[in-house]
């Protein structure tokens, strides 16, 4: 089933971390397997990289702790080798980390080089984007990663009921649009031409971290954006190219967009306020941040909408 939510403040930063937690937690019944956030803070000079070195449901063997520490140092050393000036690498949980560094070069070789370390997955890369995802409900993840104090302009989130792939962090949304800076996607639905697109995109040199069909959307959009296509055009094109039922949300450094398939098979409720746009699978999620009476509607089939902060 899954639940998705998005929020964008058009009048400057707000408490998007706490707001997104409230939205996702009110949709806990739609997916208790994992929860994920893509949050946009104040843009920084530094590149922010979120990565993990193991999965929470992985059994820890005799040198688990040492191996993670070794691999964390390896990430740092590889960042330096590829030309990045590392600012800091902080442990966010036992297996997830947040690195900040100065770097001017291409992101793809950097991501590929770092992900070559066993067990390593880059969750997000960019100057403003931070993806946090883990098993459990939204409140559990927010507490674990201290997201309630995260301030920013926009965010999307996802609560997952796993149907197409495993319950692990790799299968959790949002997906970073590898290797494109500051783009992330959450999706509710199933894509039926997943394998076709995965093969096509892999031939073009893209990597996939999971068996989850939703990852296609992120990588598909990233490829279009890299060609110079605008976000809105890329999303409209995706309605033709992707087969199946879907409602997805996409975020970039300064905008948030939604797209709905031709059959309008998956729900989405939208509220457009004067300085805030909130959208979610269920109205109760919007009510969690806007308790007063509001106007809202369901976007129609094949609709693509984009808002900027």
């Amino acid at each position, binding site marked *: 089933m899954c639940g998705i939510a998005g929020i964008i403040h058009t009048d400057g930063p707000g408490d998007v971390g706490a707001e997104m937690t409230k939205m996702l937690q009110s949709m806990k019944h739609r997916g208790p397997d994992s929860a994920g956030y893509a949050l946009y803070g104040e843009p920084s000079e530094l590149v922010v990289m979120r990565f993990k070195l193991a999965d929470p449901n992985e059994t820890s063997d005799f040198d688990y702790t040492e191996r993670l520490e070794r691999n964390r140092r390896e990430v740092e050393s590889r960042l330096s080798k590829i030309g990045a000036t590392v600012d800091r690498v902080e442990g966010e949980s036992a297996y997830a980390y947040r690195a900040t560094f100065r770097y001017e070069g291409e992101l793809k070789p950097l991501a590929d080089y770092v992900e070559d370390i066993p067990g390593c997955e880059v969750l997000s890369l960019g100057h403003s984007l931070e993806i946090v995802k883990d098993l459990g409900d939204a409140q559990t993840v927010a507490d674990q990663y201290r997201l309630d104090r995260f301030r920013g302009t926009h965010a999307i989130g996802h609560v997952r009921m796993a149907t197409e792939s495993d319950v692990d962090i790799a299968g959790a949304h949002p997906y970073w649009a590898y290797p494109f800076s500051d783009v992330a996607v959450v999706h509710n639905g199933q894509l039926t031409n997943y394998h076709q697109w995965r093969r096509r995109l892999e031939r073009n040199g893209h990597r996939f971290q999971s068996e989850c069909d939703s990852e296609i959307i992120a990588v598909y959009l990233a490829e279009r954006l890299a060609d110079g296509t605008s976000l809105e055009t890329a999303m409209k094109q995706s309605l033709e190219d992707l087969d199946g039922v879907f409602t997805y949300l996409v975020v970039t450094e300064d905008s948030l967009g939604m797209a709905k398939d031709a059959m309008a098979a998956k729900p989405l409720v939208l509220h457009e306020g004067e300085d805030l746009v909130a959208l979610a699978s269920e109205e109760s999620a919007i009510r969690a941040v806007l308790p007063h009476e509001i*106007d*809202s509607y369901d976007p*129609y*089939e094949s609709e693509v909408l984009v808002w900027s902060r």
Partner: protein
Amino acid sequence: MVAMNPPTDQDRGVRRDIRGLAEPDAEAPKVARVEGGTATFDAADLSPRQVNLELRRLIYDEGVREVTVENPGAKHSLAVGLLARCRITIDGSLGYFGATLGDGPEIHITGRVGWSVAENMMSGVVVIDKNAGSLTGAAMRGGDLVVRGHVGARTGIDQKGGTIVVGGNAGSMTGFMMQRGRQIICGDVGPGMGDSMYDGAIYVGGSVATLGVDCIEAELTPDDEELLDRKLGIYRMDRPDTFRKFVCGKQLYNYDNLEPSERKLVL
């Protein structure tokens, strides 16, 4: 593609009995202020089941005929399964499956509703002042369902009776597989309208993006005009100048024809 365990009741924080009924031990919270034949209560801190139990207590046990529910907070499945003549005002918006399975009540919702409002309504009236989601009036069998705003996709899917009136626009696959009843849509309708409909009629005041399989336009008769005037008059809605009527083309009616394999058997 690994099959996953469905979420347990513990995950959801809601206890269910062996039939799947949520909160089986819940009792009506008895929070309503009753004055004469009318009652009012605040739903902000109540679960959907508690709201429904309170409504049933008031209507069936206390004989109250007018109830106002405040702060519904877009909760799902409120005011469902009410089988008596009564008048209910929901002061706000509902989530999914609002006012479903009713037989008799007049329910007025001042806000918006989510998917599947008034699904399987047997009789009565449901009026929504703002917009509605998809599957509005699904499998409805009787009564009037009025949405003053816009509705999503698949309005009146599998409709078996009654009248759906929409003041605004409707999404794709409106009237999909409808079997009887009427839909009056004052605005525009999305693609695939009346796809695979068996019977019934859809009246459209605006434009139709595309017609679904076996849906054809029919002539508007004086009886149709009378119906449109009457229904839109009752609910004080603006009547578009012209309406078009759409019905089933009955080209897919193959019920009496045998399949090739069956034909062999008969011969």
